[in-house]
């Protein structure tokens, strides 16, 4: 996969954190039916880091991500992305658990649509689409129908689509959870390389401890409902120049897995 310079996003301006979550709570429903899904929680994500949120199902990690994306408003507290209140489509790229591609558009057409919203002129779109698809490890699929490619390939297209809009922040909500183990591992490796290449800030939600250690530069474990920070850990593993298998074989890797796994289990109670 070749690295194209125009896709790389500047990580300058480190003074303003990419994401700042301050004393945020989020409550669903009201009255006696009210459920506090998140918080109170404080979280700062510096530009260029890959933060992985881990927790059991229903710990509010997806809600937290939706708050950062701007799809939900916090009940109390403030969320800031690059110093501004988040707006859907303007603050961050987003990848969901399901690919959510538009079946009435071709594979390339789905990526082109994102470029169109970003105001990229048509001629340039035609050039950028194959480039973006190549970046996520896809070749010769631009003209295919969405349902003609595999689930793993569809999720790669969803990633390419999110990368097309050049937000410095990328939010991912369990993007590989619905894939088979082999496909998931390959996508994790490719995702690790793409983030290292582009230097984008990522907030990545998962319930897999292994995925958290493998992808994150920092891992935050959330408690069960309401979601609060149970553990906040920097991952000091090499980000580049290491083979994935080699990385997974390191003793530090196993130690981090054990620590985070323990934290997730005790936070889920």
């Amino acid at each position, binding site marked *: 996969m070749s690295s194209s310079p125009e896709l790389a996003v500047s990580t300058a301006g480190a003074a303003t954190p990419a994401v700042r979550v301050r004393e945020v709570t989020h409550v669903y429903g009201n009255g006696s039916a009210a459920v506090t899904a998140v918080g109170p929680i404080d979280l700062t994500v510096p530009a260029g880091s890959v933060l992985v949120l881990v927790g059991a199902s229903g710990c509010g990690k997806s809600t937290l991500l939706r708050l950062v994306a701007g799809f939900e408003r916090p009940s109390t507290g403030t969320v800031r992305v690059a110093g501004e209140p988040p707006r*859907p489509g*303007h603050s961050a790229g987003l990848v969901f658990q399901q690919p959510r591609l538009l079946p009435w558009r071709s594979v390339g057409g789905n990526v082109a649509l994102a470029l169109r*919203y970003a105001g990229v002129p048509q001629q340039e779109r035609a050039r950028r689409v194959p480039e973006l698809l190549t970046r996520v490890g896809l070749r010769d699929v631009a003209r295919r129908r969405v349902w003609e490619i595999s689930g793993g390939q569809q999720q790669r297209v969803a990633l390419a689509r999110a990368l097309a809009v050049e937000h410095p922040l990328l939010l991912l909500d369990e993007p590989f959870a619905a894939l088979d183990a082999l496909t998931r591992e390959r996508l994790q490796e490719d995702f690790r390389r793409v983030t290292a290449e582009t230097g984008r800030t990522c907030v990545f939600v998962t319930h897999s401890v292994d995925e958290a250690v493998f992808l994150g530069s920092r891992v935050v474990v959330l408690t069960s409902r309401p979601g609060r920070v149970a553990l906040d850990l920097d991952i000091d593993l090499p980000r580049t120049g290491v083979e994935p298998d080699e990385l997974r074989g390191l003793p530090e890797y196993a130690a981090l897995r054990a620590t985070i796994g323990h934290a997730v289990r005790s936070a889920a109670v």
Partner: protein
Amino acid sequence: MTAAPTIARPANPGSRRGRGLALRLGAIAVLLVLWQLTATVMRNPTFIPYPEAVWDRLIETSTTHDGVRGYSGHLLIEHLGVSLRRILIGSVIGVAGGLLLGVVMGTVGWIRVVTEPVVTFVRALPPLAYFSLFIIWFGIDEAPKLWLLSIAALPPVAVATASAVQGAPATLVEAVRALGAGRWQVTRDVVLPQALPEIFTGIRLAVGIAYSSVVAAETVNGVPGIGGMVRDAQRYSQTDVVVLGLFAIGLSGLAIDALLRTAEKRLIPWRGRA
């Protein structure tokens, strides 16, 4: 969307299609034999005409015979053509109106609240019920017939469109909003395309209703027109012509529906995949 990249196909589609065709032809043959048997037993051609008599009428109404052109001065194909033209114009107006109304109903809450009972009210009326009103308003020529067909075709399209627009999957809407789509872009790129399959079903229903209304519309000053032909034949107890008219309408209806289905397959290849 499921992860399955391809849909399993029957092992040999050619032979399956062949079997279906054979089945249909067999069924038609059986019906013809039953018809012939019943007609022979009844011995009353005014009540049940012989298949052969209907065939003779087909030839007679399609040619000029003893100086008489077809039936009531028009060939069968001309009667059918006039009726089809009325169906086409009525359906186009009704579908266009239904689409427009449906999109507005599906997106603007208060308009839906106001118009939904009206549309349901009109849908519940048999078209003949308001035909008398249109004759009082628009006379007895083309206008009331086209009005009837348009009004009859509008509700199914409006209802289907409104429900499809309202039922746009939140997951896809959110996905394009996350890419920076505004309100209009969400409508154009997600809401309308995802509604197309349901809208198309509404269109097929609407054309069907226009079809079933045309004969009723042509009972008043309906010659040329299949309905007019059938009505005249009924007056003179020409049962074989009545049956011929029914066949003409029914068979052309089958052909039109097949055409619409083909168009649907080409226009909406993603049907059932989203």
